[in-house]
Every structure is written in structure tokens, then in C-alpha cells.
């Protein structure tokens, strides 16, 4: 008998009688989208992220241009922000990605209760990019903020692409004496532009 059969057999012998699956009936405490935005900002900032609200993307465009002139390796993945870095694809080598100073990517949805942003694989172009870049910038439409994770899971399809992530703030650790250090292995900073254009 294979291990698979042994394990499944032991489970079917040992499991208890079927218990019903509960329905998730959590109500969100506020129904005001404006409150969600406030909460999103407050919480993301409390976990080390930075949020800037913008009514026009021109500023971001300018920022990218200037940084590129300054010689930093800036990666833009959003066509609306100007020229896209086409060298970033799913097979790009880690050693090259490691040289990215700052990456601009688009977020799908923000979650007010925990300050996280959902990113699909096609938005990040390469799975490593949001982790390996030194600094990460996410552009998120202000209309895409939902109150909590229950709502978020209703709106995203986790299996639509090969990979997706809820990302909440910069990489961090408190493994040395519980002192919080920002910038463990992933990005050292996270800036979210909330765009209301």
C-alpha cells in the first residue's frame, strides 16, 4: 500500500462524524468608504508603510523621470506612468533583479483593516520583484479599498494566476530581542500612492 493510501485510509478510519461547515457572517463595522481609506492609511503607516494621496499621476511620472536621470535603477511596470521596463519578465535572473533600486507596480485592492495590498502576478511581472527591489512603490486607486479580508477574498480570485500576495508594509523582523528592524530580506520601504484621479 502506498503512503498516500495508508494516510487517507487512516484518516477515514479515525476522523469524527461529519461536522457542518459554518457560514462566515462577519459584518464590517463601518459602511463608509471614506472611513476605510482613513483606516487603511492609519494602519499601513503603523506597520511602517508610507501613504500619499494624489489626485493626479503627473507627480509620479515626474518622480520616475528624475530618478532615472539620477542614475538609479528604477523599474516602472505601469504604462500610464510612462515608459515600461520591458526587461522585467518572469524569467529574469535574480542576480539582475537584485540591482533594482526602486520598483513601481500597480496594486489590485487595499484592505482597510490591515493595510495590505493585493498584487497579482501579472502586476508584478516577476515574482521576485516586489521582494528583491530595495524600495517598493505601489499605485492603488482609492476606490479599490475594501473594509476587511472577508470582502477582499470576495473580490479577488486567488487561483486566477499562478501567484498573488497580500503585501503589508516593508520587510521587517524583530528576531533580535524583539527590536523591530525594517528591511530584513525584502524591500526596505513601501510607499503607496492612493490615486483618486
Amino acid at each position, binding site marked *: 500500500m502506498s*503512503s498516500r493510501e495508508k*494516510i*487517507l485510509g*487512516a*484518516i*477515514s*478510519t*479515525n*476522523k*469524527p462524524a*461529519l*461536522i457542518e*461547515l*459554518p457560514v*462566515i457572517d*462577519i*459584518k464590517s*463595522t463601518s459602511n463608509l468608504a471614506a472611513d476605510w481609506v482613513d483606516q487603511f492609511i492609519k*494602519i499601513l503607516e503603523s*506597520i511602517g508603510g508610507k501613504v500619499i494621496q494624489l489626485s493626479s499621476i503627473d507627480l509620479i511620472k515626474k518622480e520616475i523621470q528624475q530618478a532615472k536621470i539620477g542614475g538609479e535603477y528604477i523599474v516602472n511596470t505601469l504604462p500610464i506612468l510612462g515608459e515600461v521596463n520591458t526587461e522585467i519578465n*518572469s*524569467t529574469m535572473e535574480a*542576480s539582475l533583479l537584485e540591482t533594482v533600486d526602486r520598483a513601481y507596480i500597480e496594486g489590485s485592492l487595499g484592505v482597510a*483593516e490591515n*493595510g*495590505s495590498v493585493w498584487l497579482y502576478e501579472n502586476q508584478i511581472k*516577476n*515574482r*521576485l520583484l516586489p*521582494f*528583491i527591489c530595495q524600495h517598493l512603490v505601489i499605485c492603488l486607486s482609492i476606490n479599490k479599498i475594501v473594509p*476587511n*479580508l*472577508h470582502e477582499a*477574498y470576495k473580490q479577488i480570485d*486567488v*487561483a486566477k*494566476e*499562478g*501567484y*498573488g*500576495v*497580500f*503585501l*503589508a508594509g*516593508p*520587510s*521587517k*523582523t*524583530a*528576531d*533580535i*530581542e*524583539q*527590536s523591530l*528592524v525594517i*528591511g*530584513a*530580506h*525584502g524591500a526596505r520601504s513601501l510607499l503607496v500612492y492612493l490615486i483618486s484621479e
Partner: protein
Amino acid sequence: MNPKNFNRLFFEPIQGATLSHSEAAEIFNKDEARTDWHDETLWFVREKRDKAVRQISEWEQLRTLGSDIKDHTLSNLDNYLTEFEKNAQANGIKIHWAIDAEEHNEIILRIIREQKVHQVVKSKSMLTEECHLNDFLSQRGVEVVDTDLGERIVQFRNEPPSHIVLPAIHLKKQDVSETFHEHLGTEKGNNDPQYLTEAARQHLREKFIKSQLAITGVNFAIASTGGFVVCTNEGNADMGAHAAKIHIACMGIEKIIPKAEHLGVFLRLLARSATGQPITTYSSHFHQPRAGQQMHIIIVDNGRTKQLGRPDFRSSLKCIRCAACFNTCPVYRRSGGHSYHTAVAGPIGSILNPNLDMKANADLPFASTLCGSCSNVCPVKIDIHVQLYKWRQELVSEGYTATGKKVAMKGMAFVLSHPSIYRIAGKMGRWMMRAFPFIMNNKSINPWYKQRDMPEAPKQSFRDWYKKNKQ
């Protein structure tokens, strides 16, 4: 007779060189300032958890949901596993099944050899600790680099993690500084956590980039979609998995949840319970290997199906490894993870490990005052302290108790069933020595007396007073 020998009267000694929990805890407590520091550091984490959960008005409702979803899942586990397998295979993921730790380790070794891999990185997975994967591979010439900062620290020191979420919580920054000075060449005496973390970042980035194979754990595996979720704050699981050509994810059979919507419940519970964060920095959802990558999942039993067959203890399989029960446990905080001599320490470890080996872990269910705080913080409402009590009964009925204790308890049971004997015995104070060892007259062998005075015996008992005054 010192207390160590006293305990030997009552517990079968653990085989080999392993110290029992109480012996190791006594050594831990020799450095009281350090014990205080350990206690306060972990209490601080508990306080962060309290603050975070108080911000969620529906917290208790979420715990109930988490508990009920897990209960349901365990009652239908075989079907969910096969559903998961089918969907994951359709996603291009290769599924392996391992009946025990050995098979789990062998599967990984086989993949490593077949693919001629030399560089392996691993992010935190308590399952691989439970299976002693690192030792297994290193004995066979494969170097595994642990990439979680805490795990890397203890790996350099040749120690096991002492906590399932905060592996190096037993170490002070001076200890880390010395370790990094030795292994990474950091400045001697520079204890700044920022500086030390930066050194580890540089060191491990190089490992990530060069690695060919990445091993990760699994926090949740979704039956209906055939994908899995891995949560980290550092980003090390993602750095490893996305850089390597091969990704192996190891999961116990109990990691299954039915649908993606259930992640909404568990991700809300997990990080708040663990560290007081609203969510971990990265909650990564893997469904398919990336182009050109191989993705494997190893589904491991290693005693879990046996635990599933124990009605009193099966709910321990609901655990989502948040470690809230560690942080709240007054005994854990004052004895340290290594005193539990097992991969998973703390209250949950004390109800999981006797299932794996009753004899070796017979001391653990007794390393508790049964205060019940663990059950109250548990996000999936495992009645941990009730199970500790039940394990005590189980261990005794299976014969894992020393003769001295058995004789004492039988004598006590006899006295307590016979009021007339009880009254005489009570006067003589003799049987009380067994029921309440702190009353033992011999101060030199009485552990109560070591650091505590005995209660003063009054002139008359309440019974005598009652007979005189009320009858």
C-alpha cells in the same frame, strides 16, 4: 536528596541525556535576571496581541469561526486532501505523500539528488524541524541554509529554535553579535539589531541568489483551488521560492482549509495572535510554478492520523502555529523553549508530543499549572489545558509513571475514601505528606521548603473547632 532526585521518585527518568522539563527549567532559573528578561520579552508580545485583538470587535466570533471551520475540515479531511491533490496537480504542482519524518526527508533528498542540487535555502517550517530535516541532509552532505533571521542565528549556534514564531527569542543581542562576529565577521561588540540584521540581509541575499532549491512550510492549503499560502514578515520564503528553480513546500495533513474565503478568517486570526500585527507583511498565495520552475508539495502524516483517532486530543490538530499559547504561558516564559526538549515547545507542544512518543515526553503535560490562559488566547479555541489534564490521565493509565508515585496515589485514594482513617491520618499528618508534599516534615528533601516556609500548624483543626463550638 535534591529536588532532582525527589522528582525521580515520581517520574520515570527520560532516557538518554535529555533533561526533563523541570530539571532544565531549574537550570534556566539559575540566572534570575535573564529569566526576568525572557519573561518580560514574551509578555510584551502577549500585550501586543491583546492590543491588536481589542481593536477587532468581532474577535471572539472570529475565534469561533476559526475553530468551527477547522473542526469541519478535520471531519472531512481525507476528501479535502484528495480534492487538494487533484487541483494542485492540475495547477502543475507535483504532490508527494509521506507517512513519517523519514519518508519526508527521503523525498527531499531524492529530489535534491535527482536535480543535482548543491545550494538549498529553507524558510521557516516547523514540520521540517519536527522531522529533523537539517540534520538528515547535512549528514548526507547537503548544506541547508535557514533564511529566517532567527533560524539562521540558532543554526549558526547549532541550537534548535526555542519558539515556533520567534526562534531566537532566548538569545540576547550580545549573543547574536558574538555569533555573527564569528560566522559573518561583523564588528566585535556591535550589538545594534539594525546593524546585525543588515549583515544577515547581505549574507542571505547572496544565498538566495545562488540557491537552486528552496524549501518552505505551508500555513494554509486550499482544497478547492489546489494552492497554498505562506506567511512571513521578512520576505524570506518568497525570496527563496521565487529565485530557485525548484520549490518544495512541506505541509502536515492538517494544514488544509476548504476554500479561499476561509483564509479571510485565518489570516485575520494568525498574525494578531502571533505578534499583534494586523497581518504578516507577506501572505503569499502559490498556485502554479512560475515558467520553468518545478513545484513540489509533500503532504506529511507523522503521527497526525493517530492523533486524529484520539477523540480527546484530535482538536490539537486545529493548531495554526501562532504561538500565542507560548507567549501567554507563565511556565514557558520562565523555563524557555529548550526545556521542552522537542521541536514544538510550549503548551501546544505538550499536547502534541506525547502522541509522537509517550515515554520521551511524559514530563511535558505536567509542565503546567493548568491555569487555562493558553486555551483563552488560542485563536482556534483548542482546549489546551483540558488536554494537558487528559494527557496526565492517559500517561498514567499507559503506565508512564514511576512506582513511587503510583504507590503514593493509591495510598491517598484509600485514605480519602475512608473518612474514619482520614481523620486519624489527618491528625498524624502522615497521608498529607503524600497529598501535599509541602507538608513533609523532612525539610532537607522537601522541595517546598527550599524557597518557601511551611504553613504553621494551628492548635486545632476546623473539624475540632466545629465539634466543640457548633455541636
